[in-house]
C-alpha cells in the first residue's frame, strides 16, 4: 500500500510540471465533447424523433459519459512497453521487488487517474452545464457503471499489454499498435455507439473485446439496460478478463526469457 502511494505521488509530480499543456488539453477535451454533441443534434434534426429507440437526450448523455469513460480507460502501456524494451530500461523494471505486470498496471492507472481528475472531469462537467438534458441516475446503475468501468480499464490494459509484448519478438510494435487503435476507435463506441452499427459489424463486435471498454459501461449509465442485461455485460467482461489474463501470462512468461537488452 505504501508502495502504491509512493508510485502515485511520483506519477503526480511528473505530470504537474506541464501545467499549461494540461489547461490547453482540458479546454480542447471539452470542445471535442461539444463537437460530438452538435453532430448528434445535427443528425437528429429539429424534430428530434427517436432513431432505433434512442432519443436525442440519451445520445447527449451518452456522448458526455463516453468522453469520460474513454478518458479513464485509456492506457499507453503498448507504447511504454515498446519504448522500455527497445531502450533497455526494462531491465531496471524487471529488477523491482514488485511484479513487472503489476508495476506497469499501477503506473498506467495512476497516470490516467491524474489525467482524468485534471483533464477529463472539468471538461465533462463543463459540457454538462452547457447542454440541457435530464438524466435519471439510480444508485444501482451508478454502482454497475463503476464496476463495469473498472473491468473496462483492466480489459484495455491486458489487451494492450498482450499485443505490446510482440515487441520482444518483432522489435517494433508500431504497426500492431496502429491496428489496435484503429480497431478500438471503430468498435469501442467512443464516437459512434454500437446501436447504430449495421447488422454485420454489430455481430462482429460481439466477438471482440473492444465494445466492453467504452460502449457497454456507458450504455449501462445511460440506463438503456435492464438489471439482467447489465449483469450479463459484467459477466462477459469477466470472461474477457480471464481470457486475456491467461493469454498475457502465457505470452509474458515466454517473452520474459527472450528479452534482448541492448546497451546497459
Amino acid at each position, binding site marked *: 500500500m505504501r508502495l502504491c502511494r509512493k508510485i502515485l505521488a511520483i506519477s503526480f509530480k511528473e505530470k504537474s510540471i506541464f501545467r499549461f499543456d494540461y489547461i490547453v488539453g482540458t479546454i480542447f477535451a471539452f470542445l471535442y465533447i461539444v463537437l460530438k454533441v452538435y453532430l448528434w443534434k445535427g443528425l437528429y434534426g429539429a424534430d428530434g424523433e427517436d432513431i432505433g429507440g434512442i432519443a436525442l437526450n440519451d445520445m447527449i448523455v451518452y456522448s458526455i459519459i463516453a468522453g469520460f469513460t474513454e478518458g479513464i480507460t485509456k492506457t499507453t502501456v503498448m507504447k511504454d512497453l515498446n519504448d522500455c524494451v527497445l531502450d533497455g530500461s526494462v531491465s531496471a523494471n524487471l529488477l523491482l521487488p514488485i511484479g513487472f505486470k503489476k508495476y506497469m498496471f499501477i503506473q498506467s492507472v495512476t497516470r490516467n487517474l491524474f489525467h482524468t481528475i485534471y483533464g477529463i472531469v472539468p471538461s465533462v462537467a463543463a459540457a454538462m452545464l452547457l447542454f440541457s438534458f435530464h438524466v435519471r441516475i439510480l444508485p444501482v446503475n451508478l454502482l454497475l457503471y463503476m464496476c463495469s468501468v473498472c473491468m473496462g480499464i483492466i480489459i484495455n490494459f491486458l489487451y494492450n499489454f498482450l499485443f505490446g509484448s510482440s515487441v520482444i519478438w518483432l522489435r517494433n510494435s508500431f504497426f500492431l499498435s496502429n*491496428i489496435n487503435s484503429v480497431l478500438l476507435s471503430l468498435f469501442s463506441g467512443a464516437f459512434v455507439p454500437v446501436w447504430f452499427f449495421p447488422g454485420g459489424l454489430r455481430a462482429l463486435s460481439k466477438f471482440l473485446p473492444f465494445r466492453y471498454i467504452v460502449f457497454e459501461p456507458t450504455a449501462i449509465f445511460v440506463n438503456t439496460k435492464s438489471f439482467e442485461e447489465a449483469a450479463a455485460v459484467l459477466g462477459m467482461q469477466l470472461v474477457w478478463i480471464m481470457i486475456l489474463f491467461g493469454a498475457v501470462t502465457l505470452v509474458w512468461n515466454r517473452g520474459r526469457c527472450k528479452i534482448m537488452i541492448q546497451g546497459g
Partner: protein
Amino acid sequence: MYRYLRLTYLFTKKAVKGMLTYRWSFLINCIAQALDYSVTFLLMWIMISAFENMNGWNAYEVMLLYAFSLFAYGIAGTFFFNIMNLLPEQILKGTFDDVLVKPVKVLPYLMSSSFICNYIAHMTLSVIVMVVCFNALEIQVTGRLLWSVAGILLSGSLIYGGLFLIVSASAFLAAKIDALFQIMYFFREVSYYPISIFPRMIQVIVTTIVPYGFVNYYPLRELLGKEDNAVFRQAAVWGPLVAVSFFAVSCVFFHQSAKCYKSSGS
C-alpha cells in the same frame, strides 16, 4: 524563381530517394495512416446512414466533404508539414542560423526543401473515396467537373498551407505552439461536417479566422446545389480570392515573424 524551382527539384529527388531506401517502412507507414483515416470514413458512413442525412446532407455527400479536406491537407502537408514540424526545434536550439547564412530567401528555401512523400497515402485514399462518392451520388464526371474539383482542391491547399505557415511562424514569437496546433486540428475536425449544423459563432470562426469553410464546405455546397441554413450563403464565390489572400497574408506574417528570431547561440 528558377533557382527555387531547381532547388525544389533537387530536394524532392533527395526525399524520394530517401523514401526508397526504407521502402517497406515507408509502405507500412502509409498503410497505417490510410487505415486510420478509413476508419473515420467508415464511422462517418455508419453514423449518417443510420439517420439517413445530416441537415440535408447524406452520408456520401459528407464523406465527400471529408475527402476534399483530406486531399487539400495532403497537398499542403507535402510542402509545408515539415516546416511546421521542424522549425520550432530549430528555433529553440538555434540551428535556424544554418538557414539564415545560406544565400537564399528564407521562406522560398523552406518551401522548396520541405518536401515529404508521406501524404501520398492521404491523397490516394481521398481519391478513392471521391470516386466512390461520385458514383454513389450518380454525378456525371465531366471535364467541367474535373476542372472545378481541381480548383477547389488548389484553393483548399492554399488555405491549409497558410495555416501551416502561421502556426510555424508563431514559433518565432512564442516558445511553445502546442495550443495553436490544437486549434488548427480542432477546427479541421469541425470542417469535416456540414458546418451549418454548428452554432453561429463556430460558423463565423471557420469562415473568417480559420477559413476551413472555404476548403470544402462552401465550394461543395455550390457544387452539389445544397440549400441549408448556413450563416454565409453566398460565400462560395469568394473561395479562390479568400484562399489566395489568406496564403499571401500568412506569407507576410511568416516573413515579419522571422525578423524576431534571436539565435540562442551555439
